[in-house]
């Protein structure tokens, strides 16, 4: 999550560095950077090094736990930049804005930010969604091979190091590493996203089907979220927003 720690000197460089840092922050549900999704309404740094980031989401009622993670991760990513003195991250137009913004600013953690409404921090939730990202990523890597005629049984025998290089593969390795799953060249492509063990031969068709529906689900949600964000903010672009990958 730590952005490249180049020394930022100029005012403009610094604003760019903040945006770059925010590119490392993902929506945990959609597994995409908050920048490309259009969630960064604005980001600015004063000459003295005070950074202010404003975030926005597709609806007033987006899930508060994921919203909290994005605000907290944005705070951490920008705080790690050299030359930045103070950081303020503000989530606008959300039912839990006050609890989230106040909690993150005070570094209170999720449980204290939502006093009495949560029993643990969000590591478990984040891991659950990383596992979904691993399943979706498996489809992204496997689909072109299957389309080119690779047999599912052959896919099962493959290790990551034997696969053609691609952004999807880099991404899959990164997500697996974040979860502590094997991600090196000798790691199998098809693994159980909880244990990291190679999938059993008779489970391969179902595993691939699950990978596919997980990817479809995440991508369809992403499509709906983008559409609603565009409607909510009348098409006003966010900082670093990119068109959907479709």
């Amino acid at each position, binding site marked *: 999550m730590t952005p490249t720690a180049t020394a930022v000197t100029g005012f403009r460089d610094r604003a760019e560095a903040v945006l770059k840092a925010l590119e490392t922050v993902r929506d945990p549900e959609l597994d995409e950077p908050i920048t490309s999704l259009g969630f960064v309404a604005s980001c600015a740094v004063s000459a003295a090094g005070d950074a202010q980031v404003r975030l926005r989401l597709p609806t007033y*009622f*987006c899930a508060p*736990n994921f919203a909290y993670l994005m605000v907290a991760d944005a705070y951490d990513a920008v705080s790690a930049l050299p030359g930045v003195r103070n950081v303020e991250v503000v989530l606008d137009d959300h*039912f839990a804005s006050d609890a989230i913004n106040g909690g993150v600013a005070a570094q209170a953690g999720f449980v204290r930010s939502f006093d009495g409404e949560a029993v643990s921090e969000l590591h478990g939730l984040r891991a659950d969604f990383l596992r979904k990202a691993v399943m979706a990523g498996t489809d992204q890597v496997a689909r072109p091979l299957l389309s080119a005629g690779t047999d599912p049984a052959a896919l099962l025998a493959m290790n990551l190091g034997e696969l053609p290089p691609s952004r999807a593969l880099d991404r899959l390795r990164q997500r697996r590493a974040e979860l502590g799953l094997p991600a090196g060249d000798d790691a199998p492509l098809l693994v159980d996203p909880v244990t990291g063990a190679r999938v059993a031969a008779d489970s391969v068709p179902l595993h691939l*089907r699950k990978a596919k529906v997980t990817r479809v*689900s995440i991508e*369809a949600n992403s499509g709906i979220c983008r*559409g*609603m964000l565009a409607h909510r903010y009348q098409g006003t672009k966010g900082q670093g927003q990119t068109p959907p990958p479709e």
Partner: protein
Amino acid sequence: MYEHNGEKYFIVDSHMHYWNAAPDNWVPGAEQYAKGWIECFHAYQGLGPPETHWTIEHFQKYSEDDLMKDVFEDGHVDVAIFQPTDLKEWYTEGFNTTARNAEMGKKHPGKFIYNTNFDPRNGDAGLEELKRNVETYGSKGVKLYTAEWNNGSRGYKLSDPGAYRYLEAAQNLGIKNIHVHKGPTIWPLDKDAFDVADIDHCATDFPELNFIIEHVGLPRIEDFCFMATQEPNVYAGLSVVIGGLMHARRNFFNKVMGELLFWVGEDKMTFGSDYGIWEPKWQVEGFVDWEMPDREEYSDYPRLNTAGKKKILGLNAARLYDIEVPKEFQLPAEAGTPAAQDDAQLVAGA
């Protein structure tokens, strides 16, 4: 009914509303939630074709005449099922209550079915109310919104003991169909509120009840699909899939439909317009016209033929609600039984 290319479709809109979300109905002190809720719904409407978009003022409170025209005159619907959502913490008279729906619907005999609702956090008083509603409105179904805020609580799970008590009572009162809508908040907030695991438990423990998961468990289609293959009494409510994706994101609509046809099957999918979010007209017409494109990326999805579309657009819901379907709309025996609970064998052989 909708007639197209010589085929006649009996249309049951199994998920629609008659709400008042105008400022005159906002609870003082909770205006921001009432406003935020209806604006969120309005953004969903933005995913439909531009010519079907309404102003926010019209969207907050549409009239009985608007509804009758949009749903029945223009929208091809034969029977519509009201799905209430109370939200009384934010809307003084409730957002769209069973009583409001029935008050309007009684002027149009035969057009509407009144589902009611319950909230297990309301204890004994809630059970009495459920009994009264079933007796008064003849409800055969309930709509449950698990993320409803209630007196400081931000939602409940259907596997809670309190919920089981209500499900038992509902079943004893003659309720057959449980429509479930997952929302963004549930205690504790550190858990995924959209998780459908609680429905998995209920579906197993209440095999006589049908569980129709509205919006196909969005945003957790994958969890919903895994669960639905294992539970014969779990159905997929298509509201939002057609309304939110068919126009706005065609590729994803194709894929989501393909996944649902694979995991759940055409016998267990029901059309719902989610009116007033989206008008049924463009959804019904577009769905009848829709075909899975003949491209490699869709090659391992089942295809949907005319009989399957007839099931999804009306015959499945008609069977769940014992709605009489005139002979001219019925399917020949070889097309299978609508709403049959045996469609998951596809997955076993995957």
